[in-house]
Every structure is written in C-alpha cells, then in structure tokens.
C-alpha cells in the first residue's frame, strides 16, 4: 500500500493530564490511533496536527513496549502547542511519523544508564527510562538526575515518586523553597554533587539548550567520555522527513538524522541549534 508521507493518521486523545500549570503550562496526552498506527523507537518523534492550526514535532514519551497508546508531554509554547493544550479527552488530532533516529539502547545492554534532565526535557528521555525499567535485567544501574525551576514546575510528579522505589532518583530545584528537602541548584551542579561513576555508563541529557551545555560540561568533568554522553536536539521542523530544509545542522537534518546525538557526533557539527 502506498503511503502518503504528508497525510497524518487520525488519533483520539484518551487522556489529558496537567503536569505543570501557569503560563509555562505542561500537559501530558495519551492518544490512540483510530485506524492502524505505527511502532516507534525510543527517542523518536511524531508530527502532531491540529487541523487549522498546523503541525508540531513532539517527542514520543511512552515506551515502544507500551502498545495501546502514544504519550506526549507538551510545553505550551506557540500557536500549535496552545491548540494542543485546548484538547480534551475524545478530541481528534492527526499524527504522522515516527520520525528521526533513536537512542541505541540495544547496544547499551549491560551498561548503567544515567538520565539527566531538566524541565520538559524529561519527556524525550522518558521513553528510554520506561523501556529500560521494563527490561531492567538487561541493564545495570539506572539513575535519574532531574531538576526544574521550582517544585511546581516538576513534571511527572506522581511517576517520579513511584520511581524512587525502582531506581536512584535525585531531584533538584533552582532556588530554595521551605518544604524542599532535596538538592537546590541546577542539574549540572547536582551531577557534580552526586558524582555518578562514568564506569560502564551511558549518560543521556536533555533539557533547555543552556542546561544541556552545562550538563555535558559537568559530565565531562567527572570523567564521561564524549561517546558516553547522548542528548537530543530540537530545531524548527515542518516536513519531518528531511526535505523542507530548515532543521539542518550542517549536513544533518535533525528530523531525519537526529534528534539523538552522542556528544562525540554533535560536537563535530556546527553550532546551529
């Protein structure tokens, strides 16, 4: 059967959860395709359509091992994401994809994995985290270092609480709050504080550009090699298939050749992200 790459499949929103309220609101959506669907890999993205408003590339935060829905956690940012935030259970949206490369988690078997995320940056790595948790026996120690600006800005609050019984979780917020018992400071500072061992470990870092930069610096400082560090990059996208020409970093189209890069690869590319 011929497939038209630009024609989205229709999907229904089956749950909406507000993770963070306020101006920089974040919501998590679960969707089910009306007809057919696709399977994705950890780290891949999908193009969500709100008809009449346009499309937006969003990373899939659910694990490929979960078959009955796709999950997206979305920060309200512009025209399309605002429209997505207006969705309710039962709303119909368009989805096409999956797009981009994936985290090479098969090749990480037997290794420890360190997840370092900030803000909405937990979404792209959530899929890896969930998958590795489901196949815990294939991997070594799993550690999450996650931070947000303030405690209300933390995403997946319930899941994180639950996670603490399954893996090491280190949380942080940027500025001290009275009730806060954990680390105060940026994620990178938390990394330096906790000093996870680079031994047989892969680090995945994801978050705002400045956070990624400082985290990579911190990780390098504590001994992680460039090829042990993975991150994801986002650029403005339209087609999702490397044709429309806007998301490139050098010869790479982030939508097709990215969004997952090891720091060893990424540092070779021009600074255009």
């Amino acid at each position, binding site marked *: 059967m011929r497939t038209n790459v630009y024609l989205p499949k229709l999907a229904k929103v089956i749950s909406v959860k507000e993770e963070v309220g306020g101006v920089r609101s974040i919501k998590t959506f679960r969707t089910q395709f009306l007809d057919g669907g696709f399977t994705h890999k950890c780290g891949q993205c999908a193009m969500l359509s709100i*008809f009449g408003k346009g499309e937006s590339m969003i990373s899939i935060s659910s694990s490929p091992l979960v078959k009955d829905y796709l999950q997206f956690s979305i920060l309200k940012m512009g025209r399309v994401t605002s429209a997505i935030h207006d969705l309710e259970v039962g709303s119909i949206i368009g989805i096409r994809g999956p797009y981009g490369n994936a985290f090479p988690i098969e090749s990480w078997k037997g290794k420890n994995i360190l997840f370092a995320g900030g803000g909405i940056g937990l979404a792209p790595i959530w899929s890896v985290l969930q998958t590795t948790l489901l196949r815990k026996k294939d991997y070594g120690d799993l550690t999450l270092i996650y931070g947000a600006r303030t405690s209300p800005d933390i995403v997946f609050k319930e899941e994180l609480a639950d996670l603490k019984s399954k893996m090491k979780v280190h949380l942080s917020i940027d500025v001290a709050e009275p009730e806060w018992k954990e680390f105060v400071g940026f994620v990178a500072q938390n990394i330096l504080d906790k000093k996870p061992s680079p031994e047989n470990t892969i680090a995945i870092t994801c978050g705002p550009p400045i956070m990624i930069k400082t985290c990579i610096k911190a990780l390098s400082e504590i001994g992680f090699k460039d090829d042990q560090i993975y991150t994801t990059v986002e650029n403005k996208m*339209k087609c999702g298939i490397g044709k429309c020409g806007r998301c490139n970093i050098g010869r790479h189209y982030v939508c097709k050749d990215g969004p997952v890069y090891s720091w060893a690869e990424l540092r070779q590319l021009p600074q255009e992200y």
Partner: protein
Amino acid sequence: MDKILAKKDFPRWLEALGAYDVYAPQLIDDVWNYELATDRKAVSLDYPQTAIPAKKIVFPQREFFFEFREADTDDYKLKELLPEGKPTVIFGVRACEGKAVTLTDLVFGGEIADDYYWKRRNAAVLVGLACASPPSTNCFCLSVNGSPHSKEGLDVLMTDLGDQYYVEILTDKGKKLVSEGGAIFHEAKPPDKKAAEKIHADSEKKLARELKNIKDVPAKLKGMFASPFWDDESMSCIRCGICTYLCPTCHCFDINDEVESQTPLAGRRVRTWDTCQFPDFTMHSSGHNPRPDKAARLRQRINHKFQYFVEVWQNYQCTGCGRCITLCPVGIDIIKVVEKVRDHAN
C-alpha cells in the same frame, strides 16, 4: 537516433501534443517566464533566461496536500489532494535547469519519497534547448560541473541550427514526445551532428563568468563557520527571498493550514515555497533562532550549496544559472562570495 526538426514545423509539433500541458518561455511585461502556452502557434524558443526557473512546474510555489473538514464534533475527514499528474511538457529548458531538476529529484526521492513532487515530475517531459550563447551575463555552468548543453535531467535536447533544430532524444519519455510529431522529424545526418557539436563547443567559450578551482571550497567552508567573513559579506543583504525563490535548485518549503471555514472547520494543508533567507524560517516558537542574523543565513545558503549538499550528494547544489546574481537587488554575487571563500586564509 538524433533528429532534425525544421523551425517552421516546430508549431506543428506543439499542435500535435494535444494531450499535454505545454509550458514554454513567454515574455510578459518585460519578464520572461515559463508559462502555459495557450496559443501554441506563438511559442518561440528565442529567449534569454527566465526570471523563475522551470522548477516551478514540477515543484509549484503552492500546492495542496490534503483537505480537512470537521465531520462531526471533533471528527475529521481528510481528503488527499494529490496532483493528477497530467502529462506536461516544458519547452526550452536550459541545461542548468535540467540539471537542477536532477538535484531536486535527489531531495524529493530516497526512502521517503515525496508523492506530490513525483506525481508532477514523472508526468513532466523536459525539452531542453542548448545555449548557443549564454542566456545571462552571469552564466557560469561550466564552473559547477555543468555545461551549456548538458543533457542531465532532460528528455530531449534541442540545438538551434539556424532554421532547424537538432533534436537529441534522451529518454523514453522524450522518444514518445518526438513520436507525437511523427513525420515532421527527420533523421539527423552527420553534418547536422557536426554543426550541433560545433555550436556546443563554441558555446562553452562564450560564458561570461567562471568560478575556478573550487574543489577545496567544501572543506574551506567547514573551517569558516565561525568566521566574521559572513558578517562582512552579508552587510548589504536585505534578507529578501529572491536568490532562493529564483534558484532552480532551492527546494525549501513551508507547510501551513489555510482555513476556509471555522464552523465546521474546513480548510487545506498547503505547501508553499519558503527560503532560508527569511528570518522566521528557523525561528523556534520560543523566539530562539539558530540562524539569528543575515550573516548566518547567507552562510547557510552558501554552505548548503557548496558544502552540505556536496557531502550528501557529491554535487554542488548550484548549476551556475546566475539568476541570484542578476536579480539580487543589492548585487550580492555568489561567484564573488565563493571566490572569497576559496581565497580565504584559514
């Protein structure tokens, strides 16, 4: 086998192509462009360079992807709007534009092929016209692996021999097109071939501009990413889209929803040309822009054509038509820029 077509018979050939949409260069308000030939008798191939290249026929500036319509509350009907792919013939395609189409083919092909493009592309027959003399003062095709009589991308190549055309059939599509003309085509004889070859050879000497020794340019560009060179070079850029919109190889596009009715919601998803020269091209909705200024955007244009494309497809994404030089309102000259890159001390 190559053919000969008398110029007086050329209109008859066009008449015979009733099943095709025929595009040919036409002069409107002092500007040449490929336009649908409504009066086929009036088509003449005596023209210089068009303002907009032939890419607009296989990759129109605006095309519809699909139509969406709210069926019931929160349900949608999507109707795919693929082009019908009506047989189309473009006359007078210059060698550089034929070659450009092959480059665009690379982009829109591959694993994930672009149906919309291919529907039109497959239906299009490109009839080239070898340049006896450069159609623009800024032609430099020879410098970028092209030639004024390149056959790349073309289905038929015609060469003007005075009162007749020397017609080379290059593909099956071309063969079919010529066969529509039937008896008006005659077998070419060796002197005809010689004459055509002479014109071809002469034309190569007539090119006004050249861009020499650029094989190191891709590597050079790599090292110049952070150079202030780009600031200086882009000073006079006014950030319009002429250089890219009118480039036969540029293919960047935008996708937008155009709403026709709010209730029930109905509209179309539309693809339009876009260009890396517009500031909003890469701007994130957060306001962050990886290419924040015109220096970064000029760098992108040159890098894409002379580095990135070369790395991926082993070819320059420039066919030397010179349109971007001729029509730039402030005289930014890609030849000069690339020469400066070439001569830049790293």
